[in-house]
């Protein structure tokens, strides 16, 4: 009894430690709100005040946002915080932070349900608290953390099993995770299918909870089915434009190889060079790219803003303990290995099916099994290799090495990223909007050049009256090549979809303020410049 109280106390310390890492200066690390974050924050505020999202939909099941139909859970979770504290960077990110902290506790209990010792479970919670990947995702409102939390919670109650209420709770949380992130619409069904097929004794299933689980799950996702019948984009959203099947590379490759085979060998050419084979290999390649050393420990994600400079998504030291932990699992024939492998595989799958891989956000679910392997590896190192008097030496070595790694992460994340890579986080929009709003009354038009992309959402987010500003929005709902629906006009603001500064001057004569990037406005005499923290120019404003 006393031992378990001690362990819970230690868990409390770990949670407190993770809270500090996640809460500290949340509005400036990351350095600015990314467009997706601003979109979610604004929609949450709009729902709070009017009950409608930015497009005027009443309590939507999916948020249209930029035409990417964001899953709604993160947005709805922001509403209570905005009720008390208003629309801000902090309130937008708070759900991620809080659920990121709670996921530490849940990971401990999941590890315990997997029959791992208390020490290993505490280590798993600790390494998740310390994980650069988890910290980065917790500190930003990017959907995946919320989905991960509910997925983990669903797994916890599924593992508890034995009683109907646990299965129903599990179904509830798995259902919520499906409403939290696109990838879960693939991950959850696959995971449940694999779990019920491989890991549960069927007799026990039928007796206890399989049918209640299925019924509860179907009830929860039923509204999604209804939305899907009205508009398929609600379910698949951006999936169409980011999937590997949208990438033209395979088609070109087939054409190239078939041309080399010539017209006389059409059958042979089709037998060897076909979409089924090439897409399968491509998906397999992308799947394993998520497990490569380069992604996990060296360079991390290829796509901003999910990238931490000069490091992977895990610490370099984790490489050794991850491998050791995996082989310790295999060697000891621990039962939970199959569960973790399924968890890992389905967690990676969304990243394998998109052409921007390896991807740190789409495969975020895999952080749990990977962290668990690291915890096992460290535990093996300390408690098996280090016995008696050597154990304290082993612990000291591990603590020292991880301290260096953590210090390095702190430099990269809290210094390098905001200083040199702030532009990846769309830095400058807040300052830009605050500046142009002051001058708005002096000009007939304010023209924003194309490279500013979806700056429109910042205009709404940072407006003096965000709700009133939305009434000035004129939408055409024309998607670009990536499926994003840009807004052409908000009141006096005109957002060009293409063209140069020369085109802008010709198209918009008179009393006009122009906003663009340094490259677009290189010939212009600037009225004002907005600078990035590293001194480079984010935006140029000229008349």
């Amino acid at each position: 009894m006393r031992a378990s109280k001690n362990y819970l106390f230690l868990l409390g310390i770990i949670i407190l430690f993770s809270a500090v890492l996640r809460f500290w200066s949340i509005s400036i690390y990351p350095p600015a709100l990314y467009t997706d974050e601003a979109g979610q924050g604004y929609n949450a505020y709009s729902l709070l005040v009017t009950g409608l999202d930015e497009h005027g939909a009443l309590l939507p099941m999916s948020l249209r946002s930029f035409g990417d139909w964001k899953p709604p859970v993160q947005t709805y979770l922001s509403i209570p915080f905005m009720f008390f504290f208003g629309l801000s960077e902090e309130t937008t990110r708070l759900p991620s932070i809080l659920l990121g902290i709670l996921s530490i506790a849940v990971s401990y209990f999941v590890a315990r349900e997997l029959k791992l010792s208390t020490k290993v479970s505490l280590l798993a919670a600790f390494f998740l608290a310390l994980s650069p990947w988890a910290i980065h995702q917790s500190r930003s409102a990017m959907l995946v953390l919320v989905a991960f939390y509910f997925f983990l919670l669903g797994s916890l109650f599924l593992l508890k099993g034995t009683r109907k209420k646990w299965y129903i709770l599990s179904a509830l949380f798995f259902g919520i995770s499906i409403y939290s992130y696109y990838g879960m619409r693939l991950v959850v069904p696959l995971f449940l299918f694999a779990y019920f097929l491989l890991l549960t004794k069927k007799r026990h299933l039928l007796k206890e909870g399989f049918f209640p689980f299925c019924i509860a799950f179907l009830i929860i996702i039923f509204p999604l089915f209804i939305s899907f019948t009205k508009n398929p984009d609600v379910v698949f959203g951006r999936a169409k434009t980011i999937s590997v099947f949208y990438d033209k590379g395979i088609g070109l490759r087939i054409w190239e190889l078939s041309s080399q085979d010539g017209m006389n060998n059409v059958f042979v050419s089709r037998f060897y060079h076909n979409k089924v084979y090439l897409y399968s290999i491509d998906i397999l390649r992308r799947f394993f790219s998520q497990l490569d050393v380069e992604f996990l420990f060296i360079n991390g994600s290829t796509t901003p803003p999910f990238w931490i400079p000069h490091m992977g998504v895990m610490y370099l030291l984790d490489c050794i303990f991850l491998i050791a932990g995996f082989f310790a699992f295999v060697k000891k024939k621990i039962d939970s290995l199959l569960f973790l492998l399924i968890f890992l595989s389905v967690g990676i799958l969304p990243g394998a099916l998109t052409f921007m891989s390896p991807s740190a956000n789409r495969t975020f679910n895999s952080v749990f099994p990977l962290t668990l392997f690291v915890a096992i590896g460290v535990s093996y190192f300390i408690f098996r290799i280090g016995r008696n008097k050597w154990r304290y030496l082993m612990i000291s070595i591990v603590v020292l090495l991880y301290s260096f790694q953590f210090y390095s992460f702190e430099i990269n994340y809290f210094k390098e990223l905001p200083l040199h890579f702030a532009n990846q986080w769309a830095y400058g929009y807040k300052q830009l909007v605050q500046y142009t709003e002051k001058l708005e009354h002096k000009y007939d038009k304010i023209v924003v050049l194309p490279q500013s992309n979806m700056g429109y959402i910042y205009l709404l987010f940072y407006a003096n009256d965000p709700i009133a500003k939305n009434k000035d929005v004129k939408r055409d709902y024309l998607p670009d090549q990536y499926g994003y629906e840009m807004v052409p006009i908000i009141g006096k603001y005109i957002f060009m979809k293409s063209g140069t500064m020369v085109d802008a001057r010709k198209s918009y004569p008179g009393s006009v303020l122009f906003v663009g990037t340094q490259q677009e406005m290189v010939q212009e005499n600037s009225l004002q410049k907005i600078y990035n923290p590293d001194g480079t120019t984010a935006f140029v404003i000229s008349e």
Partner: protein
Amino acid sequence: MKQNVIQIGILFASFLLFYTQGSIGDILLRLLWLVVSNILLFLILKRIDLSRKMIFFSHLCFMLTPGLIEQSLRLSGVDLFLLLILLFILINLYIRNIFVYCLSLVTSVVLLRIVYPEFWIFKSFNIPSLNTYIVSLYKVLSFESLFFHNTSVDFRNSIGVFYPESVFLFIFGLIGLINKKNIQTIILLLVPWILIIFGQPEISAKKDFLVFLPFLAVVFSAGILFIVSTFERKSFVLKLPLYACVLILGYGILNFHHYFWSHFIPFIYASQ
């Protein structure tokens, strides 16, 4: 006896499939190299008490490796380097003596200077940093480089060292070998060569890491046996995934065969 004949027949057939291109001299040299390297590999695997099946599959995996097939178009220093390493391992497995170990290591390096003078330590040797090792290891030992795209195997970056369909064999093979102490002996003997080879900068542009192919073939062999033993006593229906995997792997080998002879080789000749 019958099994031996079948095994040798399969190996010879795979040689005929892939290695009979070029002049008679080239073919004879490659045949000689193949025979010697396979004999050395056989003696090594026999010495560490691997089963007959495992030895056979190791040879087969070794012979059918895309990286080796591409490499063996013309005999080069890397192939002779491979022979040296096999000989070094074999000597030290039979004679376990620190003096013999050091002498064989030095002799191997001297012979390497003769057969492979382009090797980096003879060109511009600098003591490699830890960063060099980390970069080399992660570039060469990545899934991408081993199974999908490897510029040193195919400068058009279309194939890896191994078949992409065999990636799961590799993983199961590592799991299957985890408890085998005799394999650990070979790994320990390979350590100085690992340090020498992976200490070179720009290793991903070189083919030197191909000298480890025979040992990696053992991993695939272990993977094959792991899967076979898992499915051995299962019903026909449960064996269906196994048969499907065999078909897929067979298709992958055929696909490589087609790519290699219909696309890669003509491109090589066209660019010369």
